[in-house]
């Protein structure tokens, strides 16, 4: 029963949504409004999941004094302080909460991703090898697209941006369209599997 009832709910709601998509009747619209209002009221609680999971991981490390537990303390203190500052002093521009976001969260998350530039440069030197004819074609297409995107490409030859555009509009487009159709059909199949109760991983483990 612990699995059956939730699966029934998905099935019933799912098929009501299929009907809603095709039938613009008032009952259908009312059903949608009802669902929307409830979905809104459910949504804020999802954040609790994140906090609990983070608290469990780092709380355990701190209480057990696991190796490097001090860093976990940094995470927990940062979480508590940031959240508290938002509740105490508000969230407007100029508050400690916004200061933390702008000068701690923003620069670090941006820098985290920028590290990838170094890794891709290193991979370009060490890993991108023309081992086969297919790999060579891939590398040549990549080089033309790379040059086609920067002003320098046009200065080398006016053909480079043209060829780059052609690659994107013709062979790339054909490839991505075929993949998109495949993915689209896959999405439809997965959605149907969820609606019919065949795909159940989203329910989590247990009975």
């Amino acid at each position, binding site marked *: 029963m612990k699995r059956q009832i939730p699966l029934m709910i998905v099935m019933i709601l799912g098929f009501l949504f299929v009907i809603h998509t095709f039938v613009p009747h008032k009952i259908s619209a009312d059903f949608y409004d009802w669902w929307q209002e*409830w979905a809104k009221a459910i949504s804020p*609680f999802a954040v*609790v999941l994140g906090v609990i999971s983070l608290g469990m991981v780092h709380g355990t490390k701190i209480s057990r004094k696991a190796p490097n537990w001090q860093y976990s303390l940094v995470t927990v203190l940062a979480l508590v302080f940031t959240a508290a500052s938002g509740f105490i002093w508000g969230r407007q521009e100029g508050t400690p909460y916004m200061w933390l976001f702008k000068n701690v969260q923003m620069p670090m998350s*941006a820098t985290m991703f920028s590290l990838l530039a170094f890794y891709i440069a290193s991979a370009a030197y060490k890993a991108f090898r023309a081992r086969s004819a297919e790999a060579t074609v891939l590398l040549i*297409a990549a080089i033309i697209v790379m040059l086609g995107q920067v002003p320098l490409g046009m200065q080398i030859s006016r053909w480079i941006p043209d060829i780059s555009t052609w690659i994107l509009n013709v062979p790339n487009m054909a490839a991505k369209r075929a993949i998109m159709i495949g993915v689209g059909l896959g*999405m439809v199949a997965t959605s149907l599997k969820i609606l019919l109760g065949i795909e159940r991983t989203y329910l989590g483990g247990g009975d």
Partner: protein
Amino acid sequence: MTLSNFVAAFLTLCIFSFLYKENPFYRFGEHLLVGVSMGYAIPLIYDTVFIPYVYRPIFLDHNYIIIIPAVLGFLYVFRYSKNLSWLARYPIVFGMGIVGMSVPMSMHSQVLVQMKTAMLPLDNINTILIFIGTVTILLYFFFSKAHKGAYGKVTNIGVWFMMIGFGASFGYTVMARISLLIGRIQFLLGDFLGLIK
């Protein structure tokens, strides 16, 4: 150079220090980032979601029926409980129902519209190439038949199209990664050191 910029620049360098090797500065930055990010979300969601969609309807508008979805939402808490985790399925399945809408809509946008524009008259070399590319790749992903003989040769054409497509994606990926680094260096040289005008 303000204190704010100094802190932002110091933390930026903490993260960059990972390029040399794993070190305490990087770990400190990484853990601080996780904490601040989560701590940041809590008051924001409280103010902009909990208050207008839960608190206000129930306590100010006296629309008591909203207590039911609020209780449903609260069941998320049991997600990590050993015996009661099944309760957390209810808020999840309530949202999941909308996949019913994604069936016809995805079929339309991802499959039908794409197929429709793939059926252009084959009156120039580019439309012919697009047609060949799309069909041969679709055949390549058809795994019920072994890719041998004449069929294998046809699907092999699809592989070449895909390689060009992946090359284009790869070229753009390089571009994206470099752009992100440019952004950080613009911050360090411009906003922090004032060297770019």
